[in-house]
């Protein structure tokens, strides 16, 4: 299965399972030869930002007295950035989260933080796969009905997360273009 098809299949799957919404298509459309790594860059920034925020939320909710305003402010940030990248599921969990903040329910917040964590890491895993495929030649514009480069392979047959093993063997990692200068974490450290 070509990288292009793998990528298209992965992205299509993410849309189908409600992980992504049409805002992600907006990102795909903004990528072009003058900004060939745009989607990778935004996705990378989102993943770093999300991880940072979840860490802050965990700290804030760990305190005996919770500052719900601060918690809400962080959730608002995460909701905003997930909306910007089209991370539908994470965004919706953030909306629920904010309601618990407004109710000042520590229990509700803690439970929802867990859900956010799960959803975020699920998404991050798929984004990670996406970037790996992209780095070996897939076009991140695939998966969009109008933008996809070729016929989509049998998307239903295999778990997209199996792709990386094939992909990583076939090519090296050209990480330079995808990473913001501020973040030097090598891609390999994402593979938890």
């Amino acid at each position: 299965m070509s990288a292009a098809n793998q990528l298209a299949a992965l992205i299509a799957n993410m849309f189908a399972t409600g992980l992504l919404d049409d805002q992600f298509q907006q990102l795909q459309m903004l990528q072009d030869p003058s900004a060939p790594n745009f989607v990778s860059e935004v996705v990378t920034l989102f993943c770093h930002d999300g991880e940072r925020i979840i860490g802050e939320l965990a700290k804030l909710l760990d305190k005996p007295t919770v500052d719900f305003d601060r918690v809400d402010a962080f959730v608002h940030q995460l909701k905003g950035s997930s909306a910007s990248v089209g991370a539908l599921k994470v965004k919706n969990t953030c909306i629920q989260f904010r309601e618990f903040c407004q109710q000042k329910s520590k229990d509700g917040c803690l439970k929802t933080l867990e859900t956010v964590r799960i959803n975020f890491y699920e998404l991050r895993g798929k984004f990670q796969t996406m970037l790996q495929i992209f780095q070996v030649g897939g076009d991140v514009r695939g998966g969009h009905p109008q933008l996809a480069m070729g016929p989509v392979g049998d998307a239903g047959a295999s778990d997209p997360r199996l792709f990386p093993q094939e992909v990583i063997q076939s090519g090296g990692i050209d990480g330079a273009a995808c990473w913001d200068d501020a973040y030097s974490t090598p891609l390999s450290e994402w593979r938890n």
Partner: protein
Amino acid sequence: MAVVASETPFHVLAVDDSLPDRKLIERLLKTSSFQVTTVDSGSKALQFLGIHDDDASTVSVHAHQLDVAVNLIITDYCMPGMTGYDLLKKIKESSSLRDIPVVIMSSENIPSRINRCLEEGADEFFLKPVRLSDMSKLKPHILKSRCREHYQQEQQHQQSDSNSNDCSSPTNKSSSSDSSRKRKAEDNEEILPQKNRPRHS
């Protein structure tokens, strides 16, 4: 008579504390042929615009520095410290900046918030996430502001022969390229930051 370098793209200053959002707005603006500077806070925006928080004094610059004229400011509403609304107010309080069109962005659709911003002088309010189709709304505000500015300059020139009150002297002294420089400077007759640092954080 100097030829106006009219192909210079319009320059937008984008303000947002969220890194992914800054990346997005930068790309949206560049795709729409704007020159972009991004900053992550209202205070940095004011710094870039040559305004200090504590006073409304302006810094006059030499004519050649007018390349960093800002034609529009687009800012997020919810930011720590200085909100987009606070920034808007400061801009409108400044005699040199008040004519620069300001657009507010927010992820929350709160009518009272939107109205408050528009009443304070914001030209437009975008709901986030901002889309490519929103970009086409920006140029009309820039052009409207330029027309207004140009008209005001014409008025001033008619009233006083050589010196306009608000123009900084360096531009006035150069004769033939004077009007072309002013057209390029559009919104800001006097203040613009000395430093031309493109910030893409």
